């Protein structure tokens, strides 16, 4: 039983799908950010798998590293925004975050 490229791609695809479901169904802002992390991880699995079964250099690894860096930055800023939102409206329900609409 050999593990091929398709196995890893299926894992990445399912991670992406579950992350998208999380993003679209959560009403808790922190939960939405968790879904984004899942999506980025699915993409990362694909990058590394393509590099492993492609030309075997490190390009995919470097791309995955940049994705990790940006995900960390996104998490920091996103959670800061969540905290600021909580300070203003005493809730992190994303459906109540419509201050700019009124």
């Amino acid at each position: 039983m050999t593990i091929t490229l398709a196995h890893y791609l299926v894992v990445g695809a399912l991670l992406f799908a579950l992350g998208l479901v999380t993003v679209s169904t959560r009403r808790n802002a922190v939960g939405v950010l968790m879904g984004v992390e899942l999506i980025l991880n699915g993409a990362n699995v694909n990058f590394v798998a393509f590099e492993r079964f492609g030309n075997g250099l490190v390009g995919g690894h470097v791309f995955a590293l940049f994705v990790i860096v940006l995900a960390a930055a996104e998490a920091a800023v996103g959670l800061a925004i969540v905290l600021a939102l909580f300070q203003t409206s005493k809730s992190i329900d994303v459906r109540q975050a419509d201050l700019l609409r009124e």
Partner: protein
Amino acid sequence: MTRRLVAWAAASLLVVLFVIAVAAVAIAPAMDGAAAPRPGQGGFAAGAFYALAAVTLGGAAFVALARNILYSAVGLLASLLGAGALYVLLSADFVAIVQLLVYVGGVMVLVLFAVMLTNKITEVNVSNRSFGLFGGLLLFVAMAPVLVAVALLAPWRARPPGPMEPTTAAIGDALLTRWLLPFEVASLVLLATLVGAVVIARKELKAD
């Protein structure tokens, strides 16, 4: 009490799985030398892949489905650990370590801080009528088969993978030669993030 026991058992199982994967895939072939079977070919590697994929996807499903946001965070932890172990199976040792350091060590702590600092800990997802569990399930059913079919049916020109080699030196070379500009831009992004997160999250200072 039993719940706590189950949680501890699950956590220790995760750690043991990770250690076994690292030991079997990365360390044992290096110590056995040429006598070791080619990684990625043996039955053990296949078993490890399925176990780790199950941990990763199970954690992700837990993130998507758990009512309590704190349980979601634990599921995210499992998912990130599983993905890191999959990187080890893919001979990406440096990416796996960075995943452990940045995600499990940094992002997860940030997420847990945010969960604890905002007092609506219990998820409000229960009465979500507009786009709730049904909508999410619909989205999953609509999208996952397409992606999986693409992954399985597309004629990828995959080559058989070579032997596993350390990648850290090659990544260092690549970051300072070919990807030097993105590397510097990433450092600027991190600086902007550092300042921006502090500016956004601090309490409002009264203008005088």
